[in-house]
């Protein structure tokens, strides 16, 4: 299972590295969203800094949609999906592989965005031992839910509009948890760091639940009828 996962993840990440879409399009898009938020919120530093955790994670959510769509666009073109099914790879392995690919992209993007908010919103990145695990847990949770729904809507018509409708309500707890953990870490709100750790625990639970659900359910998503 894990060998299969490594194969699929390696394939996806190689595609990403070679096509450089992530670097050339998704990352600039995310930075652009940060700039647009600054325009919308009037770059009065107070408002922007208080809203930083929320804006950060909204940006990540939007980027997740792009990452999931890209990851499964590669799978639905040219009958790749059938070949993947015929390849004899373990479905759970395929799921984990796609998940690792998406989560790795998201993690890279989150690190980039951390730099972005530090510079553009003058956020003080304190409590890195809370910030970084939060980024990781959220990336895994988003990746797991995204992989499940990405496989569901891949190949159906109207998938560009259906994916946000399906995915965003599901990951609402991630938005709540990650934003609160960031507020606790960055200060400003009335949350203590200890409360931030509890939110991190929620994120980990979410990630585990959806990784588990994906491992169990992915087989029936791949097989035909």
């Amino acid at each position, binding site marked *: 299972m894990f060998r299969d996962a490594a194969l699929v993840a390696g394939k996806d990440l190689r595609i990403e590295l070679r096509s450089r879409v992530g670097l050339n399009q998704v990352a600039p898009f995310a930075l652009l969203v940060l700039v647009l938020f600054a325009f919308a919120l009037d770059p009065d530093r107070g408002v922007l800094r208080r809203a930083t955790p929320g804006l950060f994670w909204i940006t990540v959510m939007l980027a997740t949609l792009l990452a999931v769509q890209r990851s499964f666009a590669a799978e639905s073109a040219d009958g790749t999906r059938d070949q993947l099914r015929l390849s004899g790879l373990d479905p759970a392995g395929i799921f984990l592989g796609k998940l690792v690919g998406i989560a790795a992209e998201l993690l890279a993007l989150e690190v980039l965005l951390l730099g972005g908010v530090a510079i553009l919103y003058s956020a003080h990145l304190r409590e890195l031992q809370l910030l970084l695990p939060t980024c990781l847990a959220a990336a895994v949770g988003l990746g797991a*839910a995204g992989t*499940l*729904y990405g496989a*569901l*809507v891949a190949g*159906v*018509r*109207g998938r560009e509009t*259906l994916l946000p*409708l*399906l995915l965003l*309500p*599901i990951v*609402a*707890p991630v938005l*709540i*948890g990650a934003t*609160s953990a960031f507020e606790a870490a960055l200060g400003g709100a009335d*949350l203590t760091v200890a*409360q931030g750790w*509890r939110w991190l625990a*929620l994120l980990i*639970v*979410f990630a585990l*639940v*959806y990784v588990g*659900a994906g491992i169990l*359910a992915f087989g*029936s*998503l791949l*097989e*035909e*009828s």
Partner: protein
Amino acid sequence: MTSAPANPLASGSEPDQTDAAPVTERRALEGTGSRGSRIVGTLALISLAATALYGLVLSPPDANQGNAARLLYIHVPTATVAYLAFGVTAFGSAMYLWKRTEFWDLLAGASAEVGVVFTGICLLTGMLWGRPIWGVYWVWDARLTTTLLLFVLFLGYLALRRVLVGSPSRAKWSAVAGIVAAVDIPIVHYSTSWWNTLHQGTTISPQKTQMGGLMLFTLGLGFLSFLLVYWWLMIHRFRLQYLETRLDEVGLDTAIAERRAEAGRAGTSGPTAAGPELAEVR
């Protein structure tokens, strides 16, 4: 369709006629009703009327909330039935993945749609109750937020079902989506309630109401009638979904014929007055 109730499609309640003659054949061609659904529907209509009577006229206004408390006779039962409906969807989805029979898929799909309708009513009446009592239509209370997210989640589920029509894997994919959505509910509820307590300090909780005997009775009546309505709607929606899948198997020819029939009928049928609620049951 024929708006003359004097010529009821079903009032002849002899069920043994159904497999007899062309006359009954015409009757059999009508709709998703059956004797059982008509009984449930009639009971639902009666109890709904009773709920309206007790809720609007006979029960006293609440000491704290005045007449606004009357909205709770709709709001609380619809909320409960909506959660029940989504529970049925989750259960049906799980059973489908286990048993792989069409029944469970149809049950899950029908229940999700009826549940969304009930959630809509629940949210509407809740907001109309909140405006006079809390002063705002909406507060980011845990229960409200969870219900709103649930509404959107299952709208997405229904959208997925609609998009997958005709796909051989529709039932299975919908089942997975139904379970994935259901798994989210406890997490959403937990996170929103915690988020809410951390961010808002004190939440506005529903004022404790001393419920008199008559008010409790009315509330119970509301539960009964909305359960019956749910049951009745489920019968029809389930059969409708059954029809949809059967027709889907027949394929494109039928669809073309249907469009033609639609175009033909559009001229003749004219404005058939939308009868009062559930009137078409009888």
